[in-house]
């Protein structure tokens, strides 16, 4: 395919960093199209959808508890608003400020049969609990020969860029945890998905980490079913069918890719297939490789740094499974191998221009 370079966007305008700054967020939210067979729905943003999921769990499962720093008051992002009033402070409670303790305590609750839903206030604060998650939670079932497990544990935590979060309120650490067999790792892209996926995580018999892209708490507004519903873990969503290239992302980045696909179609007539991976661990290799075998090209895009990001895993697997189908190298469009910078956030993010450029290069390869 031959593509004319219509834009001179990529000739480094000197004022680029200040220009990018003016965007208040780096993506356009694409609301979910849900079928109306689904029952009664209500317009909800992501935090309200999560709240609704937690409400359902607490209501239906008398052995469920919700806890974390300030969750009794609703938490920093309002996800647990009103729950303590409805279910009492022995089921919805504040913990001291001690992440390692919170997760370890949650594992204990879960292994003793309680549905434990812990909140870690920011994913950036979960590192003190890294040992508990990786050594204790992930391996409990395995190391006890299945005598014990902490599958009833779900850890919810806000992640990713928010526009001004700087070093410790912006990170996307999913790939650290993806290196731990035994855990399930999920990151929803929308209000609708967040409710169904959270309910699945809570009921899944494995410990789950549920990463909530915090920029979407308010921006992501969907018609969300009032009823209980579960969405499958380990299953990717093909959001847009396409012919020329497969774009893979998760969380906020899905919306960047949706916009990029529209741009690529409009400006260059390139047809993109868009996959939301949904679950980072275990990830849906089948859906991804089927798509790439069809399109012959792939881009994986995430906010986390390039080296050792989950894109590396996907890229390696595509290479292995789709080698003879590939028309071009597989590309990753990601954050930089730098800490998440305060003043350079707009530049750091794998925004639509970077993705579009990569598409152009791969299609012209």
């Amino acid at each position, binding site marked *: 395919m031959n593509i004319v370079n219509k834009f001179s966007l990529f000739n480094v305008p000197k004022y680029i960093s200040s220009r990018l700054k003016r965007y208040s967020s780096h993506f356009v939210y694409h609301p979910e199209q849900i079928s109306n067979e689904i029952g009664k729905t209500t317009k909800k943003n992501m935090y309200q959808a999560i709240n609704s999921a937690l409400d359902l769990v607490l209501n239906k499962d008398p052995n469920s508890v919700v806890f974390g720093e*300030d969750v009794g008051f609703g938490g920093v992002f309002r996800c647990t608003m009103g729950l303590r009033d409805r279910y009492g402070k022995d089921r919805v409670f504040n913990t*001291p400020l001690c992440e*390692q303790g919170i997760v370890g305590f949650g594992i204990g609750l879960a292994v003793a049969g309680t549905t434990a839903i812990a909140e870690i206030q920011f994913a950036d604060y979960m590192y003190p609990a890294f040992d508990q998650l990786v050594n204790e939670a992930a391996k409990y079932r395995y190391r006890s020969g299945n005598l014990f497990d902490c599958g009833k544990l779900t850890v919810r935590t806000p992640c990713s860029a928010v526009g001004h979060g700087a070093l410790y309120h912006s990170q996307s650490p999913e790939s650290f945890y993806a290196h731990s067999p035994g855990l399930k790792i999920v990151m929803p892209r929308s209000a609708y998905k967040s409710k169904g996926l959270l309910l699945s995580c809570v009921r899944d018999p494995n410990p789950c980490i549920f990463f909530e892209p915090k920029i979407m708490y308010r921006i992501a507004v969907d018609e969300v079913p009032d009823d209980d519903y579960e969405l499958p873990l380990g299953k990717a969503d093909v959001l847009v069918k396409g012919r020329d290239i497969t774009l893979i992302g998760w969380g906020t980045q899905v919306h960047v890719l949706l916009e990029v696909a529209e741009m690529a179609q409009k400006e260059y007539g390139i047809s993109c297939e868009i996959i939301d991976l949904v679950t980072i661990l275990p990830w849906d290799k089948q859906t991804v490789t089927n798509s790439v075998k069809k399109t012959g090209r792939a881009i994986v895009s995430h906010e986390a740094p390039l080296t050792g990001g989950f894109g590396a895993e996907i890229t390696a697997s595509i290479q292995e499974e789709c080698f003879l189908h590939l028309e071009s190298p597989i590309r990753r469009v990601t954050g*930089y191998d730098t800490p998440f910078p305060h*003043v350079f956030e707009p530049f750091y993010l794998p925004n639509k221009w970077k993705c579009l450029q990569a598409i152009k290069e791969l299609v012209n390869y």
Partner: protein
Amino acid sequence: MNGSSVLRKHNFKNVLSILENRLFSTTSEATFETKPFKLHHLENGPSTTVTLSSEDALKYYKQMQTIRRIETAAGNLYKEKIVRGFCHLYSGQEACAVGMKAVFRDTDSIITAYRAHGWTYLMGIEPFGVLSELTGRKSGNARGKGGSMHMYAKNFYGGNGIVGAQVPLGAGIAFAAKYYGNGGVCFSLYGDGAANQGQVFEAYNMAKLWDLPCVFVCENNGYGMGTSSERSSASVAYYTRGDYIPGIWVDGMDVLAVREASRFAIDYCTNGKGPLVLETATYRYSGHSMSDPGTSYRTRDEIQEVRQTRDPITSFKEKIIGANLVNIDTLKAIDKEVKAQIDEAVKKAKSDTEIGLSELPGDIYSNPLETIVRGVTPFKNLEHIRVGPAVNLK
């Protein structure tokens, strides 16, 4: 003039003598009584009788006023959306920092968490450097790369966004001081909320095991975000929570009491007796950060009451005027000077420019093997550069 005048209640006689003094001249030194200290595993504590020179009175007053003004300015810049992200104000807690700093020697050091603007200024950064770090500009003391929370200066190891993470670093810094034999003491600061992090107890143990010159300072302002200390902590006697480490409780709203306790702590640590825990009982007026109005988990009356009865600046002002150490006109002149200085700093912090893109990949490593930083750029490769002069390594 007699060198010592003890201020008790403003009885009629006192008021008369104050008036009398004001008409003539001020005294050069005065003596005050602090609230009693509470002691843990200590036979003797700091002296509750403290003397203060008029020179120091002016110095502490000016420092506390400057911190208060920096914080007010920071809060306003945040409301104007010029400071983005986070912003944690220290207003109400000024006496803690000023009291400790008052006795620091060149070899002493400090590390704290995110409520760091006041400390940054005390450790030698001009208010402009603090405010322009907050606004993310290049004259910020970390070139705008840290933003809120991450500020540094000589002997000031930060500035930390992860609650509790700084505490064991303090123990390490203290070990280094001991190892180099420079006589330095490290003050490792954390809040009443952070006091529940496991790392704090790990650091206590190491510090006592090796008798490190480390003062663990728990700034107890009553709340960790929206959770009061009673609801987060099984024991709120934070000065005793080092168990085998002796501790002191001090009125953190009284700069002189904090100074006295810190002086005692430095003596104690430099005599090879090992670490101490110092709890400063204080209060924060603002919400936890700018996004917290700070009124849903405590009453407005509570805040008002502290402002009226325990404010570290007002109470100090009354004290030093009452003792005739300074006269009110001098303080007014200081207020004016500080206001002008901060106004000017705000103006500059708004108009200063940001660092260039070339610094995005700066200072990730000291000496990278690969100079091109990996990532995706449609523009040009990002070359790793060395920007900052490391202040800790000679």
